[in-house]
């Protein structure tokens, strides 16, 4: 491994761009190439002054150490599997996959090849979520009874309108709410039962879902995911026997720039020098360099996907889904 970790980014859309910028801000990492299978955004490679490739096979295997998979979810599997087989470390955008079969193949490939993989559950790097987990786990709120989360905004617009095709994106339950499925599981532990409702798949660019989770601890969570609102925001509330914790991104903007020529469009920004994405990518690189555990393991991503797919299944069938505890057959291998 050279002194700087060399990253090959696959996908040049929203997340490929965000991750690439985050790598270039690190002293001990660099982006050495962009694989843009759909030739979607040539600007990214030009701006970074790195070669752009059409396919992973076109890139010399010795020229990079890490693969960042940020193509639309439907295409994660082949890139993740190929990279792991080459024993590269992998950072895969969430959701890990759109089916458990795909996710299990990734887990098995990582095990067989003793290669490391982390997944972009970036919410674990948002400071308000980190603080919330810390407070809840300190016991300051007592036993948690009911959790509520909200996430969403306008329907996303991206390459080929892939978000509008639930077979490609998974829709609000699998693409969007997986953030909160992961978050509440990170805070409260295993989920035992899932019930959910969602708008009909045929709706044109409207996707709205509600899910109720029951935890082994006895806690109940209600999650709202929407691509039917106008402005993106997040909220959560933890109601415990000893107190309540609330977050509302609509009320917590440290900066608001309103420009009159545009008719008063607010541009909310965080004042932090390092975005949660920067923190996420820095942690990933640090964990690889120093062989430290990932904050988000592939098991975490697998479990979040399992909850999301159970919610999808519940929404489609109208019945509640019991989740059995899983013990991933890893043969004692630590990923």
């Amino acid at each position, binding site marked *: 491994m050279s002194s700087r970790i060399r990253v090959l980014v696959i996908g040049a859309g929203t997340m490929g761009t965000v991750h690439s910028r985050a790598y270039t801000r690190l002293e001990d990492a660099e982006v050495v190439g962009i694989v843009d299978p759909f030739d979607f955004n040539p600007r990214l490679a030009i701006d970074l002054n790195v070669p752009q490739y059409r396919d992973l096979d076109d890139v010399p295997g010795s020229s990079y150490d890490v693969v960042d998979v940020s193509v639309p979810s439907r295409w994660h599997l082949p890139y993740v599997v190929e990279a792991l087989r080459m024993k590269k470390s992998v950072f895969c955008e969430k959701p890990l996959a759109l089916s458990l079969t795909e996710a299990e193949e990734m887990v098995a490939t990582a095990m067989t090849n003793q290669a490391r993989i982390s997944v972009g559950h970036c919410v674990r790097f948002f400071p308000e979520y980190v603080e919330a987990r810390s407070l809840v786990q300190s016991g300051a709120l007592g036993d948690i009874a009911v959790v509520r989360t909200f996430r969403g905004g306008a329907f996303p617009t991206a390459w080929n309108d892939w978000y509008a095709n639930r077979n490609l994106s998974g829709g609000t339950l699998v693409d969007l709410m997986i953030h909160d499925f992961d978050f509440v599981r990170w805070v409260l532990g295993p989920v035992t039962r899932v019930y959910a409702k969602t708008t009909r798949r045929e709706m044109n660019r409207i996707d709205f879902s509600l899910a109720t989770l029951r935890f082994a601890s006895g806690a*109940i969570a209600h999650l709202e995911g929407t691509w039917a609102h106008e402005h993106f925001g997040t909220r959560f509330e933890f109601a415990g026997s000893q107190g309540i914790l609330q977050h509302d991104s609509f009320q917590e903007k440290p900066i608001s720039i309103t420009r009159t020529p545009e008719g008063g469009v607010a541009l909310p920004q965080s004042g932090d020098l390092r975005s949660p994405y920067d923190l996420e990518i820095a942690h990933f690189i640090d964990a690889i360099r120093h062989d430290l555990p990932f904050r988000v393991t592939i098991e975490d991503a697998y479990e979040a996907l399992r909850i999301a797919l159970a919610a999808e299944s519940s929404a489609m069938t109208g019945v509640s889904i019991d989740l059995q505890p899983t013990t991933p057959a890893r043969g004692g291998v630590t990923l």
Partner: protein
Amino acid sequence: MIRIALLSSAHMHASAYVHGLRALSTVEIIGIFDHDALRGQAFAKEHHLPWSPQLDPLLAQANATIICSENARHRFYVEASASAKLPMLCEKPLATTLDDALHMLEAAQAAKAPLYLALPVRFAPGFAQILEAVHQGQVGRVLAMVGTNHGYLPPGWFLNVKESGGGAIMDHTPHVADLMRLITRSEVDEVFAEIDSRARQANIDDSGILTLEFHNGAFATLDPSWTRTEGFPTWGDVTLEVVGTNGVIEFDPFRPHLNVYRADAPTHRHLGFGENMDDHLIQAYVSALSQTAPHPLLANGLDGLRALEIALAAYRSQASHHSERIQHLL
């Protein structure tokens, strides 16, 4: 003057209704009866009302009644009012069992005594506009709704299932489920619920999430939990989000408030302002006593039955861990 008898003061809303009645010049509260004489006498003294040690003489003098007893005793007072052929406004929930509810509706109908239900949130500032906006199609077709009705742990008989019929789910399901029925103009076919008693640990259901499926295909969730702790700046909330094909409506009638920070209080408090929904409810009830057509937002016994069906289905779902269908009675 319309002569109103107050029947029991078990429910804390009794004070609010006395306040609302006193604002009206056409009404006189002729007295209060309470099967719990000590409680009734204390209430009479506090509010400077005549105490009536007997129910029947009070009813004989009255033109109408307001029933604020424990939930399980609503039937007794409704049947008594019906026997006296008096119109009545009954606190929600209508009853604690479907059998009681059906007998109450039957008694009122047989006596031609109108039975209204106290669902004041219908009269909250803004709800009528929301209803109009939805029914004019301003947000398109309603796809989904998200409601909350949080509160403190209430005292006394609310925590005794024999008197209350249940905890948070029985107490806080009716208001917002009722708003959702008005929004969709559809009934709830199916209910799924996760319910528990971990929030306040008072040996009664204090928290839960209900998922409602409406006959017209809309779906909704409702959080009726008593999860507001001491130190929370207000008693709770009523909120309703309506997601339509062309937009979203958010309803939060208790949002208008001032923040009060006192040196002698451990936390800041909300001081609500604006019109009072309980006063509007009482006005609508009193108007209904003298007019042929009641206010369109005044709820009746059937609305109460529908809300009760939803709460009872939620308890069934808690036991079965599956969604429960509602067989609508009447």
